[in-house]
């Protein structure tokens, strides 16, 4: 069964304090791993797609990496506006393009 587990569930950082969010996955034939950002009361917003182990993508203070079993979302020198819930999702060859989501990590960055 395809599964995605994110850790930690919640993370509190001081502004400028770098850290990483983890996404562990089990999927038959990974076709893509996705990171989304979700602000309260809004729909998830697309951040990155990673397709193969070793791939990395960057956007401002965020960097996503991928191995054969997990993905990391590294946040460098975060700012309060980075506070949000970050969702990880995968799609595999066995689920015809449907995304399977983890439960998310809620990040709070204090000034």
């Amino acid at each position, binding site marked *: 069964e395809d599964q995605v587990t994110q850790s930690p569930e919640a993370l509190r950082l001081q502004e400028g304090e770098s850290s990483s969010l983890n996404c562990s996955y089990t999927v038959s034939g990974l*076709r*893509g791993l*996705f990171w*989304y950002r979700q602000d309260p*009361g*809004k*729909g*998830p*917003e*697309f951040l990155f*797609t990673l397709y193969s182990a070793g791939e990395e993508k960057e956007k401002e203070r965020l960097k996503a990496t991928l191995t054969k079993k997990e993905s990391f979302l590294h946040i460098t020198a975060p700012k309060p506006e980075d506070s949000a819930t970050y*969702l990880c*999702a995968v*799609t595999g060859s066995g689920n*015809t*393009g*449907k*995304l399977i*989501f*983890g*439960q*998310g990590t809620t990040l709070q960055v204090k000034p």
Partner: protein
Amino acid sequence: DAGITQSPRHKVTETGTPVTLRCHQTENHRYMYWYRQDPGHGLRLIHYSYGVKDTDKGEVSDGYSVSRSKTEDFLLTLESATSSQTSVYFCAISEYQGDYGYTFGSGTRLTVV
């Protein structure tokens, strides 16, 4: 997102009444999805559509039905609402089979009392 609109944004309904949520897209994408989001469960797929009149069940489809008579509209119906269906419902669209991710709507917060 400007290309996908959900309505209503908020709804309170009574147990046992039928409820229909609407998702409208202007992107002409083939694939449309309905998810629900609950604390402790994350986003779970209810139903999805891979074309006009082509739909299939997701992992939590019991108590829900869908219809897609036009490319741009995907309707989710709760035949007889129950308190366990209180949730936030998100519609999503994708041009391909989800390999490039989805675009999500802003959600509908449904409360069943």
